[in-house]
């Protein structure tokens, strides 16, 4: 056929070929397959199994009851009945309770002083003491919540008894004791479950990190073998950076839309995580997020020159990314510098948007800011990855010339013969 292809046809053809070639490289590389399919598919399941319960119940505590009055006994009974703690030991003195705590048999101590009942009888404030094990904040939270809830209940109880004794009717007493009754709602995470908030964030961190590690692994391998992805086919005469970026990116994008849908729809369904979002809203989020992650990974993988160095240099970023999502430590409390630093990562916005839509059941409007941020990020990372590929490509094409020029300059300055020096260096490196 003698007809000359149009620019568009050539462009599409090239992009297609590059994409297919990238697909082949991915599936031929065992390490990348391990990261994408074992880590990408199994890690979400693993974390879900680990955090399945997500709620710490019945934390064992010890009670030292020096008062031994009816009020303290009722208090102890009510604490034992709470979801948060159970009274595992009743100790004679603090020394015994402290020993139990140090042996890790209990995670909290409640001490009723000897004058507890007496003070109540005299209508004074009776104080009880709580000692919390701070080795995990969940122990602290449980002990404190149980003791406080029982306290509020007991206060009401004692006051109503007293007003009744003073001749008030039930209704009058209730009006006095609690003039403004309150109603508590925790609609998205009823029991303050650890798994709901953490898993939703972890799922999206897994998408970003596995994509980044896998892509860097492959980019590093190619650079090692001197066939960098940035090198353009000769027939393109140095044009076609866009084809490289979109062609390669397209391969990862397709793969990760699949993995992303598995992580965002199927994993939560298997483990009963809340899925209150609209199917198409979350699909739109995935489209934005995965595209962003692809260009993010492409940009940063430029730094990786050897296959395995990505783990040595960047593995530690995974836990840090999780903190930067703002789901545990609130974003308003971030120091200014780290707030700006968090804007480097797609997860910062992706996790929040996913939580707002999937776990809280919001519509796209609730993720409005995050979607805009993701779009901006995508554009910036796209430009950066284009720039990185052009730069690397230029360096590759002019490598010989740059090296020779540098060598000539040094030779001229120091008057040494570098070919000989290189030999010597190599011998030292070999350890001879």
């Amino acid at each position, binding site marked *: 056929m003698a007809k000359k292809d149009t620019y568009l046809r050539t462009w599409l053809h090239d992009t297609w070929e590059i994409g297919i070639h990238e697909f082949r490289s991915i599936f031929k590389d065992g390490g990348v397959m391990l*990261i994408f399919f074992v880590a990408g598919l199994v890690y979400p399941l693993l974390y879900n*199994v*680990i955090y399945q319960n997500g*709620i710490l119940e019945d934390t064992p505590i010890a009670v030292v009851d020096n008062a031994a009055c009816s009020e303290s006994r009722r208090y102890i009974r009510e604490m034992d009945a709470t979801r948060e703690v159970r009274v595992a030991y009743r100790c004679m003195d603090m020394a015994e309770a402290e020993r139990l*705590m*140090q042996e890790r048999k209990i995670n909290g101590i409640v001490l009723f002083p000897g004058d507890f009942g007496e003070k109540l009888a*005299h*209508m004074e*404030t009776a*104080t*009880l003491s*709580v000692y*919390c*094990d*701070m*080795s*995990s*904040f*969940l122990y602290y939270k449980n002990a404190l919540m149980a*003791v*406080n809830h029982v306290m509020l209940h007991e206060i009401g109880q*004692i006051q109503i008894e*007293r007003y009744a004794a003073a001749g008030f009717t039930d209704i009058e007493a209730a009006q006095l004791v609690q003039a*403004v009754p*309150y*109603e508590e709602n*925790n*609609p998205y*995470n009823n029991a*303050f479950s*650890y798994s*709901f*908030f953490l898993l939703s964030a972890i799922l999206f961190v897994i998408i970003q990190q596995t994509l980044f590690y896998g892509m860097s*692994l492959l980019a590093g391998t190619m650079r090692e073998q001197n066939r960098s992805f940035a090198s353009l086919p000769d027939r393109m005469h140095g044009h076609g950076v866009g084809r490289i970026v979109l062609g390669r990116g397209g391969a990862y994008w397709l793969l990760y839309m699949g993995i992303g849908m598995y992580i965002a729809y199927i994993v939560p369904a298997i483990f009963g995580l809340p899925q209150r979002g609209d199917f198409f809203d979350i699909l739109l989020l995935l489209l934005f997020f995965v595209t962003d992650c692809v260009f993010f990974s492409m940009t940063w993988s430029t730094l990786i020159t*050897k*296959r*395995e*160095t990505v783990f*040595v*240099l960047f*593995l*530690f970023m995974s*836990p840090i990314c999780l*903190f930067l999502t*703002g*789901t*545990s*430590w*609130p*974003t*308003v*409390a971030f*120091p200014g510098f780290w707030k700006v630093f968090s804007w480097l990562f797609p997860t910062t916005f992706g996790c*929040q948007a996913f*939580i707002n839509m999937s776990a*809280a059941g*919001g519509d796209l*409007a609730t*993720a*409005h800011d995050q979607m805009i941020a993701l779009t901006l990020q995508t554009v910036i990372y796209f430009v950066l990855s284009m720039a990185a590929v052009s730069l690397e490509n230029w360096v590759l094409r002019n490598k010989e010339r740059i090296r020779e020029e540098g060598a000539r300059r040094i030779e001229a300055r120091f008057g040494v013969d570098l070919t000989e020096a290189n030999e010597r260096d190599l011998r030292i490196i070999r350890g001879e």
Partner: protein
Amino acid sequence: MGVWQNIWAVVRRELRIWRRRPVYLLGSIGTIAFCAIFFLTFFRDGLPHDLPIGIVDNDNSSMSRNFVQQLDATQLGKVVKYSNFEEAREDMMSGKITSICVIPEGMYADVSANRRPTFTYYLNGLYFVGGALAYKDILTMINLTNGAVQRQVLRAKGVNEREIMGRIRPIDIDTHQIGNVYTNYGYYLTNILLPGMLELIVIIVLIYSLGTELKYGTSKHLVQTAGGSMLDAVLGKLLIYTLLFSGIGLVLIILLYHWMGFPIAGSIWNMFLAIVLMVLASESIAIFILGCLPVPRLALSIGALYSVLGFTLSGFTLPIEALPPYVQGLAVAFPLRHYYLFYVQEVIFGAGFAGWWQEVIHLLVFLFLPLAVLPRLKGAFINQNFPKN
């Protein structure tokens, strides 16, 4: 050549490699320095403050305005006002505010007329720390408000101030936080996160260091340098890396408990012991993983998966007893878990040797792991009969 000469030769060879390829020092000292700076500055405040709390004030009376002002004045909270619930709900869903308080219409009039209006609040428990702290703050304020109403009534009846206190608040709680008096999140998390990062770095860098020998075919040269003894080759590598990682570990402990002044009930010297043992145990894990799978890229991927899991299974955030029973046993396979238990005894309770001797034994048990795979690793190093990539 004697054992010491062999080891010394391997050490000198390793130092040359470090000088030639900065990735080893960058990957260990560089990354841990970044992590230390990150965690120590990120949780600088210890406890978050000025958490945004949404208010929908349908009452607009002196009483409701007073409530809003007082809530705003607490250290934890900062009030954001909304004219209707719908807007506030959107903002809570999008994570802009931690919670919403709805003050019912005519609250002041109802309180005055003893009609008991209901105050409602909503929390977003998906942003965990923010939600939990805002909850605490709102609960305190609403109980104070109730107390204030009661106080007014009692004053009107002529009860004196001391008795009023006893009547409004018959029971009070005096809380003692053992090991972290200020409820400082920074202390709590950094204490384990930084050693956890060190564990991760030890495993990855050591697998990488031994793995590259296989990959570039220099493993034979390594064994030759060690006079043909695999044990000496590994010992030489271990010696120099143990010095590096233990050095980092000791600096971390000094950084935490001396320079930053994190509370420690026991002795800093015992923590030196703990971190060195954890480094040794992690090194054993690294050799074990590479010995089982002498393919650098697979070993590294497995090492990465393993060490990231270590944070979860150390049990310092969600305690191990809250995990499913069949996962709980897995925790013992992570050096960080034993370091954490050691830390609880020494730093929190100051229990000393009696508290943590078992953890020392557990960590020492890890040291037997490399022995099991050494012959296999030797075969791989000399014959280089495994895929290199």
